């Protein structure tokens, strides 16, 4: 192996020490995939602000001290799970503790036969050949060192398989609890969602923290939507102020498939989300929404890349951010329309509300269009609360702090209002409302 970039050295060494214990070790295709990812991690290291795609997000708080790969079996009390359920959602639930499935905390009762929910570790141990071809297929070449790290260590996570033409009524919840073990652990779950032709499902990927310990959650999700499949997807990051989150959502859509994905970030020290959507089949549609609430000294970076690879596809992207205190956020929305992707219909918008002088947003729309018959619109705005609207509310007797909360919440409301599942929508709305009330009352902004 060539020389190793310093910020990745500890991870490379840890992988080399433990590779033989990873599930499925010895299967040539899997070993080769892990080795190639390790090679990339060694050679390029973890990203820094020298990398164009990380220009506005410093990883120094992550790289200043290497995290140790978490191991299975960290304790997580059952109470914690029962107390954090989403009311009325009634999902099939898989719980991951520091990235490893906890069968005891999961609830897959009454799961219909046409749906398979298994842990990746189980599949790799028992039935690896069935899943290895899908592993990394939507990801492609890892776009950065974190994704390479996830691939080099790939061991556990969820494997969701839905058979063709099946409509799953109840949602699937993948609950990732980090901060269960010691200080300084990194969890690296990998989730595969494989949906057959014409199938329909709702999946919630929720990240939270048990303890406020320094932790890194390096999570990667690959979604393969078959012809005409529809997936409602929600990724929620609501973690402790000492947790770092690097999340990836890599999806490929076949003909006439629909993905409605909403990413909601409410808390965490640093959150970086990469979403890469490939509209591979004609007439496929993606709605990619995001809502980030950034207070204290948090940093949230949403990096999206939608690629129109076929004709007649639709993309709708709306990201909305509310920033207060010394919060910082980044939005980079790249849309690529390939030469054959005629009749592409694409809209992108990023809107931000800045509630304090110290808050900062860097927003960068990027359109690359190689086809000639397309409709592409994009826009980005940064603004403050409207004084006149504020006065209108208080003149009706609404207390100023409530008026600020109402207006702030209203700003982000449309993104959350579009969430299809009513219990999930209400949960997100009240989570956002609580987060904003709390942030607005402690920030003392006037």
């Amino acid at each position, binding site marked *: 192996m060539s020389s190793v970039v310093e910020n990745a050295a500890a991870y490379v060494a840890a992988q080399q020490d433990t590779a033989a214990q990873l599930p499925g070790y010895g299967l040539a295709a899997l070993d080769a995939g892990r080795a190639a990812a390790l090679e990339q991690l060694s050679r390029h290291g973890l990203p820094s602000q020298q990398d164009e795609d990380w220009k506005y997000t410093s990883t120094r708080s992550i790289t200043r001290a290497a995290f140790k790969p978490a191991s299975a079996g960290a304790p997580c009390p059952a109470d914690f799970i029962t107390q954090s359920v989403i009311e009325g959602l009634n999902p099939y639930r898989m719980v991951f503790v520091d990235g490893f499935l906890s069968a005891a905390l999961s609830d897959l009762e009454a799961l219909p036969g046409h749906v398979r929910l298994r842990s990746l570790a189980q599949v790799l141990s028992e039935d690896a050949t069935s899943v290895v071809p899908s592993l990394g297929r939507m990801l492609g070449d890892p776009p950065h060192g974190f994704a390479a790290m996830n691939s080099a260590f790939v061991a556990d996570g969820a494997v969701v398989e839905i058979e063709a033409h099946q409509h799953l009524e109840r949602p699937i919840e993948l609950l990732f609890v980090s901060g269960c073990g010691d200080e300084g652990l990194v969890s690296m779950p990998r989730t595969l969602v494989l949906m057959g032709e014409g199938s329909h499902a709702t999946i919630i990927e929720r990240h939270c923290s048990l303890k406020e310990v320094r932790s890194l959650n390096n999570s990667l999700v690959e979604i393969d939507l078959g012809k005409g499949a529809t997936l409602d997807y929600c990724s929620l990051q609501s973690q402790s102020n000492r947790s770092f989150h690097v999340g990836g959502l890599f999806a490929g859509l076949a003909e006439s498939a629909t993905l409605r994905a909403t990413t909601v970030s409410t808390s965490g020290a640093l959150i970086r989300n990469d979403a890469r959507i490939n509209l591979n089949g004609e007439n496929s549609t993606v709605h990619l929404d995001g809502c980030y609430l950034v207070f204290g000294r948090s940093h949230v970076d949403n990096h999206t890349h939608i690629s129109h690879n076929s004709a007649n596809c639709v993309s709708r992207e709306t990201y909305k951010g509310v920033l207060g205190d010394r919060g910082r956020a980044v939005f980079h929305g790249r849309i690529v329309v390939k030469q054959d992707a005629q009749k592409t219909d694409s809209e992108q918008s990023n809107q931000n509300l800045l509630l304090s002088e110290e808050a900062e947003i860097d927003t960068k729309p990027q359109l690359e269009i190689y086809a000639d018959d397309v409709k592409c619109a994009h826009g980005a705005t940064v603004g403050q609360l*409207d*004084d*006149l*609207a504020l*006065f*209108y*509310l*208080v*003149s*009706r*007797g*609404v*207390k*100023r702090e*409530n*008026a600020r909360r*109402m*207006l702030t*919440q*209203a*700003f982000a*409301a*449309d993104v959350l209002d579009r969430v299809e599942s009513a219990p999930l929508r209400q949960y997100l709305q009240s989570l956002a409302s609580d987060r904003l009330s709390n942030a607005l009352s402690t920030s003392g902004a006037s």
Partner: protein
Amino acid sequence: MLKISDLRVAVDGKTILNGLNLEVGTGEVHAIMGPNGSGKSTLANVIAGRDGYEVLGGTVEFKGKDLLDLDPEVRAHEGVFLAFQYPVEIPGVANIALLKEGLNAARRYRGEPELDALDFLKLVREKVKLVEMKEEFLYRSVNEGFSGGEKKRNEIFQMAMLEPSLSLLDETDSGLDIDALKIVSGGVNSLRSQDRSVILVTHYQRLLDYIVPDYVHVLAEGRIVQSGDKDLALKLEAEGYGWIEQSAGAAA
């Protein structure tokens, strides 16, 4: 109810109200008329507590309290209501959510229990009829996509819900067709009582055919230059504001 003495107010460093005196008794309806730029809207906004108006001097007493010392939401709780000349559109905040928050904040301020969902809805249903507004408007975002007339009706509906003791109607008649004007006036008239006072700020006499005032004042160059009964409004309608401005100019 309201006593304004020698009020002087500047906007962006320019003096708009320049020694204004006005007394409004309980249960009275006063119309304030005047040419454009005379300070009518400034007066309404200063009473309601909008930012951007610098009080240079004078006092505003409301029910014995120094009104200028109170935050706008407290003024609302004390019973001041401003029907905006240009009602603000607030996407994402439902009309009914605004009213519930405002009404219950006022009730808490007065030491009354908050209305529960059922009683609140009952009250809403009763008041919404006054202005012949469709119930669906309650659940829509505040004024968003409302026509001019619908916005003004919504103002009067809010006023009916909050039952203010002093209502300031800032050019509520502007932009209304005759049917909407009748509905809006009907709403205001139904709220007239011995305990409530109203200040109508208007450029035209037309509104006063429907809401008959007890007193009419003419505002010019930041002061009230003439007061009278409703006949004064008719004279203004017939002769315009020219003679007022001349006499105001002569007096200054």
